[in-house]
C-alpha cells in the first residue's frame, strides 16, 4: 500500500517541556488513522507541525515519498493537507459560506471574488452533511456543534489528500457524531486519508483502521484496530495497566454547603446537592452540560435566578466574586492561561495575589520579604519545580502552573475549593501528584468540588459523584464504585435531534 504521509524523527521542545521526542509516523493512503494520547501527549503539537503553523526542531516530513518543508499554513494546504483545529479557527464576524470558502480562495489565489460561485460551492460542501442552515448568517450565531461541522466542511472544500481532524467530537452529540462518521467514511471511500485525533478511545476504535499512540511526546507504536483492544490502548497511553490510584473515601464531616433548586435560564435547572467537610464531590458530564455554569454560580460570576444557597447552615446570597471570597469559596478555572494565572509575572507574584492584604508592611506597602517567604512556603509544600520564585510563570510546565494556581488559592485558606478540570493539559505524573494533593486537602477538612470530563479521574479522586446533562443533574452516586462505562453512558445525551 502506498504511503500518503511519513513523519520521521520529529522533535519539538518548548520551554520546560519536550512536546515531541523523536516521533515517527506513517499513514497509508485511503485509511482512517487514529491518533490517541492523553492531554499533553503531543498530539496537538504534531498536528500544528503538519499544518505548517509551527516548525519542528528536528526531523523530516514526506508526502507521497517527497520530502517537504512547510514554512507557512498555505504550504501544507497546497500539498494536500487540510486541518480542522480544536479551536476551529473560524471567523465569527463573517458569513457561514465565507467561512467555508476562505482558505480555498486563498489557495486558489482568487484575488477578485465571485460571490455567486462562493455561495454555490459552500452550499455543495455543506450538503454533504445533510444539515440545513442559512449560509448567509454570521457564523457567530451558530452553536458549537454546528461550527465544528463548518470547520470540517471548510477542509472538505479542498481536494485534500489528507484530512486532519483534531478532537472533532469534543462538543458533538451522539447523532452529530454519527453524521460526522458517515462523512468520514464517504471521504475514505473517495480515497482520502484521515488522521483522527481524539482521546475518546471508543470513537477512535470504531472509526479508524489503524491507531497510533503518543505518550509524553514519544511514539508508542501503531496498531491494527482488529488486534488491539481498549484496555491495551489505555496501557500504552498511560504506561501501566491501571489508570489512577483510587482513593479510599474520607470520613465525611458536617454539611458545609447546601444548594437547593438552583436555576438559571439558559445555564442550569433545579440543581440541588450537599457538600460536606472533608469530601471531594465530583461533577462530570460533557462539555456544555452546565457544569462550569454551576461552579460559576457558586463563585458569584453567573448569578442564579432562583433557588437557595446555604453555607454552614446559613442562607446566603452570592452576587459577586468578592462576596464568594468572604464566604471562603475559591474557584480554579479550567483555562489556566487566560483565567488562572498572570503569565508574564513571576511565580511568587502569582502565588501571593489572593493575600496581598496579608503581606503588607507598616506603611501599607507590599513587603517583598514577606512575599518571598509566603511563596517559598507554598513552593516547598506543593513541590513546584523548579523552585525559583522569581521565574516567569510562562516558563513553567503545565503541571507546575496548575500547582501554582492551587497554591494561590490555598494561601487564601478557603473552606470550599471548586476546581474545574484539575489536570487539564498536564502530564501523567503531575496528574497523580495533583490527585494526591486534592485528597490531602480534603483530609484536612476542606470541601472540594471537582469538575472533570475525564471519567477515570473523577472515579479516582471523588467520594461522591454527580452527572450533569443538558443543564440538570441526572444522576448522583454516593460512592465511587461505578464502572467507567456506566458513568460515560449517563453523561451522553440520547437525543435524536
Amino acid at each position, binding site marked *: 500500500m502506498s504511503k500518503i504521509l511519513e513523519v520521521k524523527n520529529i522533535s519539538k521542545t518548548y520551554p520546560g517541556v519536550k512536546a515531541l521526542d523523536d516521533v515517527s509516523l506513517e499513514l497509508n493512503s485511503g485509511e482512517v488513522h487514529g491518533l490517541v494520547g492523553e492531554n499533553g501527549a503531543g498530539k496537538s503539537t504534531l498536528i500544528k507541525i503538519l499544518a505548517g503553523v509551527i516548525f519542528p526542531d528536528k526531523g523530516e516530513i514526506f508526502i507521497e515519498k517527497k520530502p517537504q518543508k512547510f514554512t507557512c499554513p498555505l504550504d501544507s494546504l497546497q500539498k494536500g493537507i487540510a486541518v480542522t483545529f480544536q479551536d476551529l*479557527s473560524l471567523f465569527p464576524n463573517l458569513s457561514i459560506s465565507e467561512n467555508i470558502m476562505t482558505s480555498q480562495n486563498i489557495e486558489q489565489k482568487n484575488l477578485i471574488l465571485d460571490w455567486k460561485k462562493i455561495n454555490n460551492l459552500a452550499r455543495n460542501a455543506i450538503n454533504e452533511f445533510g444539515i440545513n442552515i442559512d449560509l448567509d448568517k454570521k457564523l457567530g450565531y451558530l452553536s458549537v456543534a454546528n461550527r465544528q461541522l463548518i470547520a470540517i466542511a471548510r477542509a472538505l472544500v479542498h481536494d485534500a489528500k489528507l484530512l486532519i481532524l483534531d478532537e472533532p467530537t469534543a462538543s458533538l452529540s451522539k447523532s452529530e457524531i454519527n453524521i460526522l462518521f458517515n462523512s468520514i467514511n464517504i471521504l475514505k471511500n473517495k480515497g482520502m486519508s484521515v488522521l483522527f485525533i481524539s482521546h475518546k478511545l471508543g470513537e477512535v476504535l470504531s472509526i479508524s483502521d489503524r491507531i497510533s499512540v503518543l505518550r509524553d511526546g514519544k511514539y508508542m507504536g501503531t496498531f491494527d484496530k482488529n488486534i488491539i483492544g481498549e484496555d491495551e490502548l489505555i496501557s500504552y497511553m498511560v504506561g501501566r495497566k491501571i489508570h489512577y490510584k483510587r482513593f479510599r473515601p474520607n470520613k465525611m464531616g458536617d454539611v458545609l454547603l447546601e444548594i437547593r433548586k438552583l436555576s438559571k435560564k439558559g445555564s442550569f*435547572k433545579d440543581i440541588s446537592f450537599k457538600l460536606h467537610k472533608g469530601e471531594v464531590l465530583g461533577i462530570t458530564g460533557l462539555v456544555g452540560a452546565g457544569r462550569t455554569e454551576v461552579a460559576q454560580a457558586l463563585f458569584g460570576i453567573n448569578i442564579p435566578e432562583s433557588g437557595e444557597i446555604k453555607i454552614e447552615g446559613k442562607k446566603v446570597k452570592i452576587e459577586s466574586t468578592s462576596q464568594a471570597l468572604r464566604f471562603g469559596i475559591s474557584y480554579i478555572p479550567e483555562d489556566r492561561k487566560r483565567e488562572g494565572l498572570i503569565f508574564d509575572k513571576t511565580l511568587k507574584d502569582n502565588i501571593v495575589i489572593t493575600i496581598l492584604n496579608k503581606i503588607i508592611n507598616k506603611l501599607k506597602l507590599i513587603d517583598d520579604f514577606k512575599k518571598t517567604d509566603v511563596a517559598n512556603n507554598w513552593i516547598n509544600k506543593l513541590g513546584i519545580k523548579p523552585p525559583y520564585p522569581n521565574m516567569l510563570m510562562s516558563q513553567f510546565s503545565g503541571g507546575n502552573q496548575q500547582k501554582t494556581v492551587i497554591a494561590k488559592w490555598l494561601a487564601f485558606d478557603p473552606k470550599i475549593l471548586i476546581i474545574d478540570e484539575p489536570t487539564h493539559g498536564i502530564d501523567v505524573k503531575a496528574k497523580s501528584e495533583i490527585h494526591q494533593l486534592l485528597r490531602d486537602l480534603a483530609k484536612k477538612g476542606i470541601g472540594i468540588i471537582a469538575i472533570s470530563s475525564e471519567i477515570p479521574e473523577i472515579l479516582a479522586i471523588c467520594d461522591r459523584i454527580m452527572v450533569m446533562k443538558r443543564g440538570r443533574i441526572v444522576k448522583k452516586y454516593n460512592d465511587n464504585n461505578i464502572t467507567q462505562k456506566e458513568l460515560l453512558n449517563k453523561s451522553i445525551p440520547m437525543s435524536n435531534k
Partner: protein
Amino acid sequence: MKKIFQKKETNMLIVVIVISILITLKNSTFMSIENLVDLLKCNTVVGILGMGMLMAIITGGIDISVGAMTSLITVIVGKVLVGYQVNIFYLFIIVSICGILLGSINGFFISRINIPPIIVTLGTYNLYGGLNIYFTKGAWITNLPKYFVDFGQIKIIGLPIQVFFLIGIMCLTYFLLTYTLVGRGIYCIGGNPEAASRVGYKTKNILIFVYSYIGFISGIAAVVHTTIVKQVCPNAFLSGSELIVIAAVVLGGANILGGEGTVLGTLLGVILLGIINNGLILARVSTYWQQIIIGIIILFSVSFNILRSKNIEKEMFKIDVEE
C-alpha cells in the same frame, strides 16, 4: 424586510432622516439644494479619510496620524503647485506616492515590529506634524496657480467635483473590501487574527497594505482639501480632524474591536456628523451645544450597538436545558 431592519445602516438612516426633519421644521433653508450641496462639499474630506480609517478599524487597529499625514501632504501640494506648476494628473501621482510612503511607515512598525497601531500612529502623528512645521515654519502658501483653483470649481451635473472624489474613493474601498481576497482578509484579521494566518493569509502584508492605503487616501484628501480652501495653511488641519474621522466611522457602526464595519455605514456616520454641525447652526442652537450634542450621540449610538451584540452573545452561550 426583517433583515433590512436588523442592519445597523438602516437604524442610522432613520436617525439621519429624523434629525433632518427636526432641523427643517426649525429652519426650512436646511433642505434647500444649495445648503445640501454645500454640506456635502464641506464633508468630503472627512468622508474620504473615513474610508481609510474604516479599514484600519476593521482590522482592529486605528490610525490617528491621518490628520497630520494629510496636512503634511497639503504642504507638498502647495510647494509643487507653486514651484513647478505641475499639471493635475501628475499632482495626483505625486501625492499618491507620498501618501503611500508615509502610510507604509505606519504599516512597517505595526506589522513587522509588532507595535500596537495606536502607539505607532501616535508617533507618526507627532513626526509628520513636526516635519510640517519644521519645513514651513507655519507660513501659509496662498498664491496657488489659477488652473488649480479653477479645477476646484468644476461642477458636474450640478455637483462640485470634490463630491466625485468621495464617490470614487467610496467605490474603490467598497470594491476592495467586498470583492477582493485582501479585503476579506482585512475582515478575517479583525475577527480572529490567529485563524487568519492559519487559513493562509499573510497577515503582516495585509496590515502594510491597509496602512499604505490610508496613506494613499490621505494624499487624495490633501488635494481635495486644498481645492476647497484654495490655499495651504500648514497647521490648520492638524487639530482634531482624526478624532472627527474616527467618530464618524464608529458612529457608522464599525466595531472598534475589529471585524465589523461598512462603507455605507461610514458614509452615514459622516453625514450624521455633518448634519448636526450644519443643522444646529441653522436651527440657531448656540455653537457651544454642538460638541455636547455630538458627544451624547456618540455615547448613545455606540452603547446601543454594544448592548445589542451583547444580547446576541448571551443567546449564543445558552445551554439547551432540558425542561
